[in-house]
């Protein structure tokens, strides 16, 4: 071996995933509750939920999976241009989304439909985006969830700047302090912006939690194309704690996210959480995952399903009975039906609205183009604009 040659890169799974991921887990795939679990940061994590809260988490998980399935179906039927399914990542999104306190701010990618749901955003919002009616126009201030960001990793800097603003406003240091959660994926971890965000957050000691859903694939590229060490360990090099959580475990995800957010709001700076999960579906509806991954791998992850384990747990512990399970299924079905009806009834925007909001103060150039286009539209016989 030549001097300095460290040999061929280790096989990906050995590098980034196996052996057994060193993660925080409070609920096994079989639905066994683990009382306490120690993270890579040396901290012991647990949750103390009431039965009602357990049932609530189960309800969230089931409903968002059903809504997601409806959206996929709507795309297949030509009603959405494209859809980025969250299938398999429900626990990561509900666990982190429910860990937010009302004053916290979230910066999503374009797959955080479950987080939006937890924040009380009408589920039609991401669908109107993927239908092409708008670009995701919920009110980021009202719901404390920024718009979806399509450019991979760009939002991590926005989130960091927002967190810097929290510090400037003096809103850290107490229980009523504010914190930011910033979502991104394993692919984004290779982006310069994400690494710059880590630097900024560290240097300015900002109240932010970087929440990486490592769903193992960036479209077709497996995690070993992005990293030779587990992603959470990158935090070390930037000077803040990082840890990995079982992203298919809603309890553990909640526990670590809540703790990291609380640390942030109390002035203890950033944390990187790597939620170790799996994208059960395609990257988006335009993708064919059978071209780049094997069925056995998908089956392996299907056995770690985030919802089945919660159901097993609540049934075994007699937290929920058959009628509750049936009631949740019915609720999910009704919400999906309602969503479908509203998507189908969604009108196309008026052509002239394409000129709206290009600039806060307007632009004479845009105004002139709008006027000319309106005249052009009016020139068609029987036009009704």
């Amino acid at each position, binding site marked *: 071996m030549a001097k300095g040659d460290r040999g061929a890169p280790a096989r990906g799974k050995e590098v980034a995933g196996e052996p057994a991921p060193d993660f925080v887990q409070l609920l096994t795939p079989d639905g066994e509750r683990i009382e306490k679990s120690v993270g890579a940061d040396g901290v012991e994590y647990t949750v103390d939920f009431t039965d009602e809260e357990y049932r609530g988490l189960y309800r969230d998980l089931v409903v968002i999976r059903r809504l997601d399935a409806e959206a996929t179906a709507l795309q297949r039927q030509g009603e959405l241009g494209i859809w980025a399914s969250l299938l398999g990542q429900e626990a990561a999104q509900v666990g982190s989304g429910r860990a937010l306190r009302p004053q916290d701010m979230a910066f999503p990618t374009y797959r955080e439909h479950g987080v939006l749901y937890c924040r009380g955003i009408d589920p039609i919002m991401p669908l109107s985006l993927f239908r092409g009616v708008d670009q995701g126009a919920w009110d980021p201030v009202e719901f404390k969830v920024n718009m979806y960001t399509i450019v991979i990793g760009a939002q991590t*800097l926005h989130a960091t*700047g927002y967190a810097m*603003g929290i510090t*400037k406003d003096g809103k850290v240091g107490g229980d009523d302090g504010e914190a930011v959660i910033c979502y991104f994926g394993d692919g984004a971890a290779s982006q310069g*912006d994400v690494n*710059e965000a880590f630097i900024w957050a560290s240097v300015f000691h900002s109240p932010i939690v970087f929440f990486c859903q490592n769903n193992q694939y960036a479209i077709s590229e497996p995690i070993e194309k992005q990293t030779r060490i587990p992603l959470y360990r990158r935090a070390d090099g930037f000077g803040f704690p990082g840890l990995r959580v079982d992203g298919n475990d809603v309890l553990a995800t909640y526990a670590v996210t809540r703790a990291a957010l609380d640390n942030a709001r109390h002035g203890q700076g950033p944390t990187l959480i790597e939620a170790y999960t799996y994208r059960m579906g395609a990257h988006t509806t335009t993708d064919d995952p059978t071209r780049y991954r094997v069925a056995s791998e998908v089956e392996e992850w299907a056995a770690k399903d985030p919802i089945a384990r919660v159901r097993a747990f609540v049934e075994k512990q007699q937290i929920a009975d058959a009628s509750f399970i049936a009631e949740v299924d019915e609720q999910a079905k009704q919400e999906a039906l309602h969503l479908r009806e509203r998507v189908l009834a969604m009108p196309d925007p008026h052509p002239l609205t394409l000129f709206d909001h290009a600039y*806060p103060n307007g632009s004479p150039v845009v105004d002139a183009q709008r006027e000319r286009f309106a005249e052009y539209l009016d020139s068609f016989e029987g036009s009704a604009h």
Partner: protein
Amino acid sequence: MAEKLTIGKALNAGLRRALELDPKVLIMGEDVGKLGGVFRITDGLQKDFGDDRVIDTPLAESGIIGTAIGLAIRGYRPVCEIQFDGFVYPAYDQIVSQVAKMHYRSQGKVKVPMVIRIPFGGGIGAVEHHSESPEAYFSHTAGLKVVACSSPQDAYTMIQQAIASDDPIVFLEPKRRYHEKGEVDTEATFPLHASRRLRPGTDATVLAYGPMVRVALDAATAAEEDGRDLEVFDLRTLSPLDLEPVYESVRRTGRCVVVHEAPSNVGLGAEVAARITEECFYSLEAPVLRVTGYDTPYPAARLEEEFLPDLDRVLDAVDRTFGW
């Protein structure tokens, strides 16, 4: 109150006033703190306003612009300094895909009232990447406004107007003119997005902005000796362009020359020429001519005088409009 200031000092005074007037105004960039910026435009500001408002950032341009977006969403008004024109490109994605589109994407719910200050243009004998004129990239991007100052008065006034504006604005500063002095009336008012006639004339219209305004004015003085009376405009706002006063001028003179340091291909001059042709077609005695940098990368410093438009090249173009 009027006093004589350099462009650099006028920018400094304008920034100072903006910091005083609005506690949400922040300055951020590389070396803007203790050093006062490599051109000293932010000299003394950190000392007086603290490092919480005048922020030395890590050395990464995308990070500067990206975090400024987040601060703007939070309610701040960041003024970002990009150290040199050629260093803005690492931030290009954040500027073009995020800054420019936030308001549109959110249907008006999110504003990012940011100013991105860029010292631009050549003529300072620098190494590569320190002499570029990137205005066309940003002027081409809907959602951004782009302005260029050329005098101490405009430097003082326009920087404050840009900061007060809710539009995201790329603010171009003629770095080779930073040391030129002029009167600054601190009470002066003139709209930000308006071109300005600097010299009336009857024979041809010359358009310039930023560092080329001085060249255009000198050319007009020289042309006078040849008996030619040139009308000179400082365009000032590159996006949106304010060309109504220019159309009025060209309809009178019938001839127009547009001057910029940036290369000609798909540059500001092309847009200006196209619009003048559309609006003044029957008044034109000659095509609108462009005097620009060449369509090469910016050359080594010992060649930049050949690359940059100067008085003689402007007069040569004016001559050609008369020879048509």
